C-alpha cells in the first residue's frame, strides 16, 4: 500500500519533473496570495501586505531547489544533469572531446575484442547440458613418448567397466574421411566414428531422426550416418525427408538416421558426418593397441576431477599389472572437456588479454591526465561555485558525472570497433582457434567490458574529483589562470600519471619486439623441405572402390602418370601425411643391431612414392631413394631419416640395417637410404624422427599429392585438380594449397598475435607520447613568464630548450626504467610464448626503451621550441 504511494511519487518526480515544478510554483503563488490577504485582513494596506508576505516567503528559487531535492530520485536526477553538463562541455572543446573519446574507444575496443575471444574460446560453458561434468580422458605414458595421447579401445572399456566415477563414457575415432558422391560435385567430408554412447555422454539428441543404437556398432549394421546441420542444408537443401534415405559415402550406401542441430560441433566445427564406431575385436583383446580414440565421459553428479583421477590411477595400476605387455607404464589423465578444447591457445590468449588490459590501463591514465589538465584550467570555476555555496562533495560528484558522456561515447565506439575487428580477424584465425564460431559479443562479454569501463571512469575522474574536493574558494578567485601558484601537487600527480603510462607501454613494446624476433627466428628455421613452386592436395581414396592395397597403389601410380603429362611438370610424389599439414601418423618402431635403444616409442610413419623426396627437395644423405622396382613382390625396404640413423646406429652406416613395426610377425625392412630430417608438426617443435616405406609395400588410402613444376603453384591448382578428375571423376580432393601456404598457415596464430600486440604497442606509444607532450606543454605554458624573464636576463635559446627537454626526458627515463623492470618481472611468462629468443632478451628490451625515449624526446622537443622562441617583452607584458 505505502509502496504504491511511494512508487507513484517516484514516477511523477522522474518523468514529470517540469510539471511538478509548475505545480510547486502555483502552490507557492497561492501561498503568497493567501498571506497577502491575511495581512490585509489584519489591517495592513494592500502594498505593505504584499511586501510583508513576499518577505516572509523568502527566496522562491531557494524553496524550489529545496523542495526539488526533497523529491524522490533527486540525486540521480542531479547526476543526469551533471552528465548533460559534461556533454555540453565536450561540445564546447572539440579537441578534448575527440581525444578523450578516442582514447576510451581504443582501450575499451581492445579489451572487448580480446576478452570476447577469451570468453568464447576458454571460459564459455560448452553447449551441452550440465557441461561441467564432461571430461576427456587421455593416455599418459611419458616413458613411451606419449605425454598426452589418444586412448586404446581396451583401456577405455576397462576404465568404464571398473570405474565408478563415470555415468557414461564415449569413444570417438576423430579422423574419418568420407567421399560423398551422388548429386553434385564429389566432396570429401571430414567425419568421426563415434560410439552410440557419445550422444548419451553429451546428452544431445539429433534435430531430426535419432542417434545411433548400440547394435549399430556391429560390423554389417553400421551403414548408418548422422549429418551435420550445415551439410544437410548445403547438399540436401534442408529436406526433412532425407531421414531414412541412403546416401553414397565412399561408394557405400549409408542410411541417414538423423540430422544434428546447428550448434553441434563435436569434436570440432569442421566435422560434418558421424557414423557408428565398430571396434576391431583384436583391439579389445589387446592383441593390438593402437592409441587412436578420443574419449569423452560424463562424471556422475558430485564426483570431482580429482576423485576421478585418483580412481583411474588405481585402475591403470591394476591394468599395468594384469597386461604388462601392452599396459606397462601406461597411465591416464582426466581433464575437463572445456579446458581441453582451449588448451593449445590458452597461454597466448591470456597474454593477449594482458596486453589489452595494459592498453586499457594506459588509456585510463591518459584520460586521467587529460581530465586533470582540464581541471587545472577550470579551478576558477570550481572556486566560484564553492563560493556560491556548492558543497565539496557535490563538486566531486559532479566531476565524476561529467566523465560519463566520454565513457558512453568511447565505450560505444570501442564496442563497435571490437565487433568490426572480430568480423575481420576471426575468419583469418579460424584455423588456429578452437571454438572460433562461438566467439561473440555476448552478454557476459559486454558485462565485463562495461564494468571495466566504469572502473576506468572512476579511476580517471578520481583526480579531478579530489581536485574539486580540495579546491579552496579563497586562493583561486584572486589568482588569474596563468600565474596561479597553487597546484604543485597537481603537477606532481600528472607527472606520475605520465611515468605510469610509459612504464606500461614498455612491456607492450618489448612484447612486440619478442614476437617479431620469434617469428623471424621461425621463418629462418629450415623445415627440411623446399616450399617454393610446390602444390599439395589431399585425397581420401575410397576402399570401397579400390578394395585392396594393390588397387589403391595402382590408382596412385595412374594419378602420378597423368600429372606427369601436364605442361611445365617437373616432379610429383605422394605421401600419407604432409609435413606441417595436420594430424601426423605416429607409431613405435623396433630396430635390429641397435647400438643403444632397440625401440623408438614414437616416430612419424610415412608411406611415399619414389619421387616424393625429389619433389619436396628432401636431401638424400646416403644410399638410394625408392624406385618403381620396390613393389609388392620385391623384398621389403625402407628409408630412415638422419636422426634415426644417428640415434640407433651411431658411428655406423644405417644402410642394410633392418627395422619393423613392433608387432610379432611383422616383416623386417632393410634400410636402403638415409634422408634429411623434416619438421612435421610445426616449425617451433621437433618431437620425432621419421621413417619411410614405399607406397606399394605399405599402402595408405589417405594420401597427399605434391607436384612441382615450372609454373606458379597457385595458378596450377585448377589444372592439377582436373588431372585428378581425369583419372577418377568421382575422386574429391581437399586442402589444395601451395607449400608456401602450408608453412604460412602453421604460423598464422603467431602472426595474428603479433598483429594484435603490435597494434596495441603502437597505440600505447602514441598515448604515452601524447601524455608526455601534454604535461610538458602545460608546464611551458605556465612558466612562459619565467622563460621570458630568463631570456631577458641573458639565457640563450638552447638553454631554455635544454631546460624543457630535461623535464620531459626526466619523466621518460623514470618511466622507461620502471617499465623495463616490469618487463623483466614478466619475462618468465613471456618465455613460454616466444621461440628462439629469451623472454628477457636484452637487445629487444634496449630497443623498446630507446624507442620510447626517442618518442618522448620528440614529444618534449615541440613545447621546448615554443619555450625557446618566447619573446621576453611579450611574456613580461602578459600579466
Amino acid at each position, binding site marked *: 500500500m505505502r509502496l504504491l504511494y511511494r512508487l507513484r511519487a517516484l514516477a511523477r518526480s522522474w518523468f514529470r519533473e517540469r510539471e511538478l515544478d509548475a505545480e510547486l510554483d502555483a*502552490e507557492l503563488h497561492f501561498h503568497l496570495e*493567501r498571506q497577502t490577504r491575511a495581512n490585509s485582513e489584519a489591517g495592513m494596506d494592500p502594498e505593505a501586505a504584499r511586501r510583508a508576505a513576499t518577505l516572509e516567503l523568502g527566496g522562491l528559487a531557494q524553496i524550489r531547489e*529545496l523542495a526539488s531535492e526533497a523529491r524522490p530520485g533527486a540525486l540521480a536526477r542531479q547526476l543526469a544533469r551533471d552528465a548533460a553538463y559534461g556533454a555540453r562541455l565536450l561540445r564546447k572543446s572539440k579537441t578534448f572531446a575527440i581525444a578523450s573519446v578516442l582514447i576510451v574507444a581504443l582501450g575499451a575496443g581492445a579489451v572487448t575484442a580480446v576478452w570476447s575471444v577469451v570468453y568464447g574460446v576458454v571460459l564459455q560453458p560448452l553447449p551441452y547440458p550440465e557441461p561441467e561434468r564432461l571430461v576427456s580422458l587421455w593416455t599418459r605414458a611419458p616413458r613411451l613418448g606419449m605425454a598426452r595421447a589418444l586412448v586404446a579401445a581396451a583401456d577405455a572399456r576397462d576404465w568404464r567397466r571398473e570405474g565408478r566415477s563415470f555415468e557414461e563414457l564415449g569413444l570417438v575415432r576423430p579422423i574419418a574421411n568420407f567421399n560423398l558422391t551422388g548429386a553434385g560435385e564429389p566432396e570429401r567430408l571430414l567425419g568421426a566414428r563415434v560410439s552410440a554412447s557419445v550422444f548419451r555422454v553429451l546428452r544431445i539428441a539429433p534435430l531430426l531422426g535419432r542417434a545411433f543404437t548400440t547394435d549399430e556398432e556391429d560390423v554389417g549394421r553400421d551403414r548408418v550416418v548422422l549429418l551435420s546441420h550445415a551439410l544437410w542444408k548445403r547438399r540436401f537443401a534442408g529436406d526433412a525427408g532425407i531421414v531414412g534415405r541412403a546416401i553414397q559415402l565412399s561408394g557405400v550406401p549409408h542410411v541417414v538416421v538423423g540430422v544434428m542441430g546447428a550448434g553441434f560441433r563435436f569434436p570440432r566445427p569442421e566435422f560434418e558426418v558421424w557414423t557408428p564406431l565398430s571396434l576391431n575385436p583384436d583391439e579389445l583383446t589387446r592383441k593390438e593397441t593402437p592409441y587412436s580414440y578420443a574419449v569423452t565421459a560424463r562424471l556422475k553428479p558430485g564426483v570431482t576431477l580429482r576423485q576421478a583421477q585418483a580412481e583411474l590411477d588405481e585402475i591403470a595400476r591394476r591394468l599395468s599389472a594384469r597386461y604388462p605387455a601392452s599396459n606397462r607404464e601406461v597411465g591416464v589423465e582426466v581433464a575437463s572437456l572445456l579446458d581441453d578444447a582451449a588448451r593449445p591457445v590458452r597461454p597466448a590468449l591470456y597474454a593477449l588479454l594482458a596486453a589489452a588490459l595494459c592498453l586499457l590501463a594506459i588509456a585510463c591514465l591518459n584520460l586521467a591526465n587529460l581530465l586533470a589538465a582540464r581541471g587545472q584550467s577550470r579551478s576558477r570555476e570550481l572556486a566560484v561555485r564553492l563560493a556560491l555555496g556548492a558543497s565539496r562533495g557535490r563538486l566531486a560528484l559532479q566531476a565524476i558525472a561529467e566523465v560519463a558522456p566520454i565513457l558512453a561515447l568511447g565505450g560505444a565506439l570501442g564496442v563497435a570497433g571490437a565487433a568490426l575487428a572480430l568480423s575481420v580477424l576471426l575468419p583469418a584465425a579460424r584455423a588456429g582457434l578452437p571454438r572460433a564460431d562461438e566467439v561473440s559479443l555476448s552478454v557476459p562479454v559486454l558485462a565485463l567490458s562495461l564494468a571495466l569501463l566504469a572502473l576506468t571512469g572512476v579511476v580517471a575522474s578520481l583526480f579531478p574529483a579530489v581536485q574539486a574536493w580540495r579546491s579552496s574558494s579563497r586562493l583561486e578567485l584572486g589568482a588569474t589562470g596563468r600565474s596561479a601558484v597553487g597546484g604543485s601537487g597537481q603537477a606532481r600527480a600528472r607527472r606520475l600519471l605520465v611515468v605510469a603510462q610509459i612504464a606500461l607501454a614498455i612491456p607492450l613494446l618489448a612484447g612486440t619486439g619478442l614476437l617479431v624476433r620469434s617469428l623471424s627466428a621461425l621463418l629462418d628455421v629450415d623445415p627440411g623441405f623446399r616450399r617454393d613452386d610446390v602444390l599439395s592436395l589431399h585425397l581420401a581414396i575410397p576402399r570401397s572402390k579400390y578394395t585392396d592395397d594393390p588397387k589403391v597403389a595402382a590408382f596412385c601410380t595412374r594419378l602420378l602418370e597423368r600429372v606427369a603429362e601436364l605442361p611445365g611438370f617437373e616432379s610429383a610424389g605422394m605421401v600419407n601425411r604432409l609435413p606441417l599439414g595436420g594430424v601426423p601418423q605416429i607409431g613405435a618402431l623396433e630396430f635390429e643391431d641397435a647400438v643403444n635403444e632397440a625401440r623408438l616409442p614414437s616416430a612419424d610413419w610415412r608411406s611415399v612414392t619414389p619421387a616424393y623426396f625429389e619433389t619436396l627437395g628432401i636431401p638424400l644423405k646416403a644410399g638410394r631413394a625408392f624406385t618403381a622396382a620396390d613393389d609388392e613382390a620385391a623384398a621389403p625396404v625402407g628409408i630412415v631419416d638422419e636422426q634415426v640413423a644417428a640415434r640407433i646406429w651411431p658411428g655406423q652406416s644405417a644402410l642394410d640395417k633392418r627395422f619393423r613395426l613392433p608387432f610379432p610377425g611383422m616383416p623386417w625392412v632393410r634400410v636402403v637410404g638415409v634422408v634429411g630430417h623434416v619438421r612435421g608438426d610445426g616449425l617451433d617443435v621437433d618431437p620425432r624422427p621419421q621413417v619411410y616405406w614405399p607406397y606399394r609395400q605399405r599402402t595408405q588410402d589417405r594420401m597427399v599429392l605434391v607436384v612441382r613444376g615450372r609454373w606458379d603453384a597457385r595458378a596450377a591448382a585448377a589444372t592439377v585438380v582436373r588431372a585428378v578428375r581425369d583419372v577418377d571423376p568421382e575422386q574429391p580432393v581437399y586442402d589444395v594449397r601451395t607449400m608456401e601456404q602450408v608453412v604460412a598457415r602453421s604460423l598464422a596464430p603467431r602472426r595474428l598475435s603479433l598483429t594484435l600486440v603490435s597494434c596495441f604497442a603502437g597505440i600505447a606509444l602514441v598515448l604515452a607520447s601524447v601524455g608526455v607532450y601534454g604535461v610538458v606543454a602545460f608546464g611551458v605554458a605556465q612558466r612562459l613568464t619565467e622563460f621570458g624573464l630568463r631570456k631577458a636576463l641573458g639565457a640563450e635559446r638552447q638553454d631554455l630548450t635544454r631546460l624543457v627537454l630535461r623535464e620531459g626526458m626526466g619523466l621518460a627515463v623514470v618511466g622507461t626504467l620502471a617499465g623495463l623492470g616490469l618487463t623483466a618481472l614478466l619475462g618468465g611468462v613471456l618465455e613460454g610464448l616466444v621461440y628462439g629468443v629469451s623472454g628477457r632478451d636484452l637487445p629487444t628490451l634496449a630497443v623498446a626503451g630507446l624507442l620510447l625515449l626517442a618518442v618522448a624526446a620528440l614529444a618534449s622537443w615541440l613545447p621546448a621550441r615554443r619555450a625557446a622562441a618566447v619573446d621576453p617583452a611579450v611574456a613580461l607584458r602578459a600579466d
Partner: protein
Amino acid sequence: MGKPTDLVQGTLDLLILKMIALEPMHGWAIAERIRQVSKEVLLVQQGSLYPALSRLERQGWISAEWGASESNRRARYYRLTAPGRRHLQREQAAWERLSGAIRLVLRTA
C-alpha cells in the same frame, strides 16, 4: 515576525501529519493552523514547509490533490494516507512518551 523557533525535522513532520489528520488542508493553512494552535510559538517557514510536504509525499504518508480554496482559488490540498495515519499514531505515541520522560526529568532533577 520574529525569528521562528527552530523545529527538529521529525517534529515538523509530526505536526504536519497531525494538522491534516482531521481534514485535507493546503500549505498556507497548515502553517497558519500550527501558528494559531501553538499560540504563535511555532512559526513554520515556507522554506521548511514545502520541502517537508515533498518529503512526506515521497514517503507515502500523505497525498496531494488540487482543489478549490475557501476563496474559490485553486490550491493544493494534502490528505493523510492510510499508512500515514498509522505512522502518525506511532509517532505521536513515541513523542508523548519522550516528552513525558523529559518533563519528568526536568521536574525532579
